[in-house]
């Protein structure tokens, strides 16, 4: 079994509103999987189905190869977008309670809690009430609640909203650490750029439907548009540009006097860069040459647009 979670044709309706329409996903083990899409696309509904908070009208979900059932709850950790804890309950008691609800023994939970308190530099908060903590501190506690029971699958809904930059970084590092230790992670977000760098796999969800999914690199390859950024070392802009413009599709250009460099973007007819580079090298020094890879956001917009045209 290479997938921690598989969804097959999952649909969910709320009254007349279709929240999910035949969504199928495969989330590989030990990966970071981005569930991307705008607000209201159906991400939270899908996550709630995985968490067995709601149930699909049709379709099925498999966890580690077996149909999703109640006992899997203890193997999933969920950080919801709407975060909260009992305000008047003490930190230690509260985390122990929530860990026990996830099926941990009190003893086990206590030991783990010590580990995380040390790790996240949480000192003597044990007897503090949540309402006495700052928002950032409460968020740390919430993170511990999510990961304490060592879930195989972690689901973070908008993980970095509400964290200050320092804590956001800290949490990011912790998530990567958890992945190294074997956990599979789902990120759900509408701010696609925020997690793109972390995700190996993504799925784009829009208006209750999955638009595309797969390995991020493969998707980007599929969506590459053969646009390259080039920097040529030239002592003067002596007609090279005009000559290039005749032969190639130059999208934009600029000559930097100080660096003695001509920067331009070019769209090539194919992905074959060899002849183009050979041509350039014969004219001048190629200082830099990079492919402009579309961002998830750009891919998303493009997919939505093409879908609107075709569908």
């Amino acid at each position: 079994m290479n997938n921690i979670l598989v969804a097959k044709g999952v649909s969910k309706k709320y009254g007349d509103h279709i929240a999910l329409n035949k969504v199928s996903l495969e989330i590989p083990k030990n990966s970071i999987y981005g569930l991307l899409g705008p607000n209201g696309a159906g991400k939270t509904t899908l996550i709630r189905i995985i968490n067995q908070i709601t149930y699909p009208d049709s379709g099925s979900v498999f966890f580690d190869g077996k149909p999703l059932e109640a006992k899997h709850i203890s193997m999933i950790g969920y950080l919801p977008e709407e975060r909260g804890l009992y305000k008047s309950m003490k930190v230690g008691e509260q985390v122990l309670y929530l860990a026990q609800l996830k099926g941990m023994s009190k003893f086990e939970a206590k030991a783990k809690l010590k580990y995380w308190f040390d790790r996240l530099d949480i000192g003597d908060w044990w007897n503090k009430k949540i309402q006495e903590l700052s928002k950032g501190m409460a968020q740390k506690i919430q993170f511990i609640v999510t990961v304490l029971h060592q879930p195989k699958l972690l689901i973070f809904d908008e993980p970095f909203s509400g964290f200050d930059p320092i804590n956001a970084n800290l949490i990011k590092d912790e998530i990567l650490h958890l992945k190294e230790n074997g956990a599979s992670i789902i990120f759900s977000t509408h701010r696609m750029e925020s997690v793109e760098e972390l995700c190996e796999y993504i799925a784009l969800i829009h208006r209750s439907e999955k638009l595309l999914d797969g390995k991020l690199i493969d998707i980007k390859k599929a969506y590459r548009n053969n646009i390259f950024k080039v920097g040529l070392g030239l002592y003067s802009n002596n007609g090279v540009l005009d000559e290039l413009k005749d032969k190639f599709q130059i999208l934009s250009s600029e000559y930097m006097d100080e660096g003695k460099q001509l920067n331009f973007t070019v769209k090539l007819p194919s992905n074959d860069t060899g002849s183009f580079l050979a041509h350039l090298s014969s004219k001048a020094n190629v200082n830099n040459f990079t492919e402009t890879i579309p961002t998830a956001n750009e891919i998303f917009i493009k997919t939505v647009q093409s879908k609107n045209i075709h569908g």
Partner: protein
Amino acid sequence: MGKLALIIKREYLAKVRNKSFVVMTFLSPVLMVGMVALIVYLTKVNDNEVHTIGVLNESHYFSTDFQGTENTVFVKYRDIDLETAKDSTLKMGFYGLLYIPDEPTLESVANRSFLYTKEAPGSAIVENLEHVFKDRLRFQRLQELGVSVADYERVDLDYEINTATFLGERNVKGVNEIKAIIGGGFGYLIMMFIIIYGGFVMRSVIEEKTSRIIEVIISSVKPFQLMLGKIIGTSLAGITQFAIWIISAGLLFSILILVFGIDPGGLGAGAAQAPGLVGNAATLASGESTMQLYANELFKIPWAMLIIFFVIYFILGYLIYSSIYAAIGAAVDNETDTQQFIFPIILPLMLAIYVGFFSVFNNPHGPIAVGFSLFPLTSPIVMLMRLPGGIGEGGVPIWEVVVSILLLLVTFMGIVWLAAKIYRVGILMYGKKPSYRDLLTWLKY
């Protein structure tokens, strides 16, 4: 520990440790006892007030009357006219002036007598005065008729028909009422408990919703488990509170009795005499045996059965209502939005209490009493009011009890199922105050 047990424990501790719970628990009995003491004190002060009434008697009747009592002092005026008497009564600050004019007959004297007071007089004083006139008038009429007072007193008798069941058990007047009061006490207890602790359940649901912890919890346990745990945990806290109240109130009262030397035997005797007076015990051949009959009737109330049924009706009734409260808490975002939903809950409870007190008192087995003791939203209260009369022969027919409990069970399952559905959807809905129509669509999710 099972998840349900964990939730029950948390809800119980959260409630019991709450400061307002602790304060209320220990303050309420003190307040109660304080209230009783205050009422007793005020009544005493009221009773001890002595009224002075001036009497201007121009007639030749009543010369020996108006000697004054414990609470009334009569001051007799002589040889002044009415206006002067009024003035001096006011000046002396007396309570009032009784004017008895000079007339030829006792009848006309009585008819033309006046009591002048600054404000409308107290009924006790008026009764007291009227009594004097009545006695005189009666005495005169008896004389006119040639009847001696002794003969008259022999004529004045009370009569009560003897009633019994076909099995020969004697019924005693007023016993139905006493039984209904005992049952009503249980019913009232259930109603209070539902309103107070149902409200706690509701607030606790709202708190989880507004603090947004709900989603974390229901990703670990089923919403139904959470709802049930909350209801049970809160009611256990309530039972704890009641137990503390009963024990501490008992302690406080016994301390009061010791300190103030109130004789509980005397209180008991006074209370026991009250029903006897209904039938004017003095004229009945044996007051003693009537008392015995009442005592027998009270002993005959099947207390063990009553308590068992109290527990059954209490648990079912409380679960039905508190799951509705939980559903309401889940449907709204804050407490102010709950009003429109709470009224329909309180209504059957109030109805049950009023119907119980009016209809069950009059006729414990009449159609209204039977109807309301079968209807599941009122049966926990109304049936308990009927049950002190016993089950079976002479009491509530067995089929009624069975049907009422079966209906209650079916309703319980239905309501809890519906409430759980509303709860499950509602706890994840934010920002919008739902209408009844919304709740209906939630049931289909």
